[in-house]
């Protein structure tokens, strides 16, 4: 049975989906749903019926673009049939620069070394005691401090007179404080690491995290020393703080009051005068140090 005639008649009823007359084939960037038509524009038609010409040209190109899109592999989703798009070929600029990699926390380093992988867990967990689903953490979670239990067994080996509810509350507080301390420590180490990264990156070496803590400690000690002498009496007549450590390595040396060698005394006095008034042609301000000081203050 020859059905080609019937098919032809059926096809004639509808308008065609193919487009003729494109000398240069279109280029497509399907990731952005774009078609580039490099065929020259018919200037005569453009002058005569601008809008009609533009509409027919656009319709032809849209038909070709859709023919390409409909040939892409598709998957069926809840939202209907989805076409899988390739990555776009036209490069568009970003709006913000690439994010800088954050320094790793202590746990992240440990996990990486041991090969511990973070597996996502369900938020809701079945609680056997109540027989319902509760969040694993947070508000009304199963891990709550347990102070809501109407009865708490006194654990073996603890003082029977102890208030167990209070003990549980204190334990939770301690956990919170520990967590906070660790978070602070991570933040400080991250700050030092990023600072050190700058220095060593400029030098071309790799940063060493073991020095981070000692570097931070040295920084803090330096600052304490500076703040001690930042008083009106340059630290001389301040009240001593109870339990304060004496700063290391600071010794004072006293010259004898009367010396036989007067030239030394003269030299010392002249050097003081030079520093205060300034030698001929030398600045009062050490420019190098001033720049460094302002930089560090910023």
């Amino acid at each position, binding site marked *: 049975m020859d059905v080609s005639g019937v098919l032809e008649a*059926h*096809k004639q*009823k*509808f*308008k*065609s*989906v193919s487009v003729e007359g494109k000398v240069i084939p279109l280029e497509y960037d399907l*990731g*952005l*749903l*774009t*078609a*580039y*038509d*490099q*065929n*020259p*524009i018919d*200037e005569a038609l*453009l002058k005569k019926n*601008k*809008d009609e010409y*533009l*509409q027919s*040209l*656009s*319709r032809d*190109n*849209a*038909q070709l*673009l*859709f*023919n390409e*899109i*409909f040939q892409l592999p*598709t*998957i069926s*989703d809840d*939202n*209907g*049939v*989805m*076409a*899988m*798009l390739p*990555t*776009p070929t*036209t*490069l*568009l*600029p*970003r*709006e*913000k*620069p*690439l*994010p*800088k990699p954050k320094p790793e926390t202590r746990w992240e380093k440990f996990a990486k070394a041991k090969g511990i992988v973070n597996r996502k867990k369900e938020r809701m967990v079945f609680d056997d005691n109540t027989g319902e689903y509760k969040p694993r953490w947070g508000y009304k979670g199963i891990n709550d401090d347990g102070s809501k239990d109407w009865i708490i067994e006194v654990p073996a080996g603890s003082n029977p007179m102890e208030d167990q509810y209070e003990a549980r509350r204190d334990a939770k507080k301690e956990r919170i404080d520990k967590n906070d301390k660790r978070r602070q420590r991570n933040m400080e180490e991250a700050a030092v690491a990023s600072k050190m990264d700058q220095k060593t990156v400029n030098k071309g070496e790799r940063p060493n995290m073991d020095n981070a803590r000692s570097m931070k400690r040295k920084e803090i000690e330096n600052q304490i020393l500076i703040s001690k002498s930042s008083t009106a009496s340059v630290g001389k007549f301040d009240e001593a703080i109870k339990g304060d450590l004496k700063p290391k390595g600071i010794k004072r040396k006293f010259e004898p009051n009367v010396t036989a060698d007067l030239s030394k005394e003269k030299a010392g006095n002249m050097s003081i005068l030079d520093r205060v008034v300034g030698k001929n042609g030398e600045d009062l301000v050490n420019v190098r140090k001033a720049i460094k000081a302002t930089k560090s203050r910023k």
Partner: protein
Amino acid sequence: MLRTITPRNARVKRVMKNREAKTEENIKTAIFIRGSQTSQIVNDALADLYMLKKPHAVNFTKKNQIHPFEDHSNLQFFSQKNDASLFVIGTHSKKRPNTLTFARMFDHQLLDMMEVSIEKGTPMKDFKTPKSAIGMKPCFMFNGDMWDQNPNYIMFKSMILDFYHGQTVDKVALAGLEYVISVTSGPMTSEGKPGKIYLRTYTIVLKRSGVKLPRIELVEMGPSMDMTFGRMTEAKIDVWKQSLRVPKELKPKKKKNITKDVMGDTVGRIHMGRQDFDKIQTRKMKGLKKRAAPTEESGESGDKKQRVDENDDEE
């Protein structure tokens, strides 16, 4: 200029986290500003472009004293405050009538901008046809041979794509392709300057065609604008290069050692290390084991037995 905000509650913290640099970026927000003097054409054009860009658009309804080509510091402030990286500024003056300035920011600093003046514009409300829904992803087409050659055209193409392409997705619903933006380049003028460009927007109607592929019909939806190019500020090369950098995570991963042979089967290659064929551990065939002579064997076992006996004696 802007004070650094320290988050005091979780909501502000989330907003700040959303605004910082990410590997996969948010959809760019655009701000539509009116200059100190505007005309009806410019107002209509801004309103239409704003509707197409919604919901990722901010409309400044008040007039601002803003001249981007002279001083673009205002743009930096607006960009930081609204977390927007795209701008359209509409102005009208005797010297430059019905002008739209498109500007882009990178890291809240001006990246590039260009000026177009509208010769003839028809707003959306003048087309009594159905419009597409807000927030749909459009198709684009650029007709004419100038789109790769002239820097004006290249920047305009990049701007239009950047403004309206929405989110870069890896799949799109076929039923959700509702409208198409078509930009056509007209012929060059007799002086050799770039000619007009014609921007048209159509809704797509899919019709039956007897075959699997649908027949496309277009219905003009607006806005429709005929524009000529004005001034342009191109991006500095190093900033442009930095803005085009793709993070490692988003680069397409090369699949190594997997090929398809002539028959269409997927074939993989496994690379073994050096193997010493004398020392390979193969299956044990107990019957093929080297046996010692029978006397020696009993002697050995006898020795074993003796040792056991000796231990017993000692105990």
